[in-house]
């Protein structure tokens, strides 16, 4: 009973993780600018690994691996937005002008 519930929840979480990874990777090719690419690809660079961490936490074998996964989650919550901020600050100070749809006033 319990194993069946955990298996079905795992299928749903894995499906969402695959969707996040595919959407974030396709957004690297569909968007015109590095700012928009950065915003859209954070779906693949922070949401998909976090969903995978939840999946692994659900299927963890013992307490030692569960606490390690929790440690990785806490550090990942700090490091992933900081990475995005570093890249966007570098792009801004490099002088890359944000993309504007043609025909609109800035």
């Amino acid at each position: 009973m319990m194993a069946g519930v955990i298996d079905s929840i795992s299928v749903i979480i894995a499906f969402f993780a695959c969707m996040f990874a595919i959407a974030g990777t396709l957004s690297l090719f569909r968007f015109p600018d590095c700012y928009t690419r950065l915003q859209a690809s954070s779906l693949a660079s922070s949401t998909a690994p976090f969903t995978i961490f939840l999946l692994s936490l659900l299927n963890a074998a013992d307490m030692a691996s569960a606490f390690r996964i929790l440690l990785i989650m806490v550090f990942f919550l700090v490091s992933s937005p900081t990475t995005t901020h570093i890249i966007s600050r570098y792009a801004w100070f490099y002088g890359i002008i944000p993309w504007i749809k043609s025909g609109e006033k800035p």
Partner: protein
Amino acid sequence: MKEQIFYITSWIFIICIGLAIIRLVLGPRGADRLTALAVISSLILALLVLYGTQEGRLLYLDVALLYDVFGFLGILAIARFFRDRESRDRSL
């Protein structure tokens, strides 16, 4: 059942890493390349945690924690290096 879930998920992640490597190679500017590098580093971290849970071995989780720290520091160092090189080129 569980093995099939992990197998399919890891192959989809590997395909996504391959697609991000294409953007890493042909990105026109440095910021695009750094974006692709952040995606690749995060997906590899997810793969390490997934594989460590599947095999039930703690070694992969330790390596994943180290890879998290070093991916963050690597992107920080590359952005700093690009910025320093840019300011030096402007001052010349």
